[in-house]
């Protein structure tokens, strides 16, 4: 169990590194998917080793997968819109909402 949780923690840290350092918006979203997956591994591991009398963890991670898919769809639509209007999808070029 400790191995699974440690694996999820390391995966989350790698995803956080990607979110902090990527310039490309698509790169940031891929790192976000890594972080979602780390959280899902945590839920399923707790469901297997601690709370074994129900399947709450697995159901919750199924909902997380669905919501992450919806988020990816909307985010990539926004990325295409940015590309069409600014000819660039780097996160430091998109600063019109910065005051």
């Amino acid at each position: 169990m400790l191995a699974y949780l440690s694996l999820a923690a390391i995966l989350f840290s790698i995803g956080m590194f990607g979110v902090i350092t990527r310039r490309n918006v698509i790169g940031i979203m891929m790192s976000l998917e890594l972080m979602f997956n780390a959280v899902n591994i945590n839920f399923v591991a707790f469901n297997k080793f601690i709370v074994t009398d129900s399947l709450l963890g697995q159901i919750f991670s199924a909902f997380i997968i669905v919501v992450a898919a919806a988020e990816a769809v909307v985010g990539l639509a926004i990325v295409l819109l940015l590309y069409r209007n600014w000819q660039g999808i780097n996160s430091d070029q998109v600063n019109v909402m910065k005051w």
Partner: protein
Amino acid sequence: MTSPQVGIVFWIIAFVMLISAFMVVSLKNIFHSALFLILCLFSVAGIYVLLQAEFLAAAQVLIYVGAVAVLMLFAIMLTNNLASKKIRQANRNVLVGFFVSVIFCFITLVLLVKTYVSVWGKLKPQAVLPAQNVLVFGKYLMTKFMLPFEVVSVLLLAALIGAIVLARKERS
């Protein structure tokens, strides 16, 4: 970890997952990092199988590998001239981000080990998960989690319509 074979499989999957995740965040070419993202998501599905979550493993392969990663590849190819090698892919705070991530990972691991020693290691092993996991899963989805199930379908519909409205060409 019940048997040594499961342990060996776990370490292989963990190794593949961490290497490919590191490639995802560090490669210059964003197309290659999307391909490594697919490998990483596959190994997460393998972890689900090891944790007796077969339905989640199938859903992971279908949704993430089949839909999300392909969507990422499409978006990268539609914005292709930005993914070339000449453009800098990382911003100025690589060093800061690296140290923040390492410190976060270290603190989390220390907390995990301490909590495991003090709390989780002392728990009595309860009943194991039922072997027919998918049946129980479906029963939960149709009885106790009926309302979140429907709400999530409405959310998917809203995301679909929102993506179409956002990405549509504006006609003047």
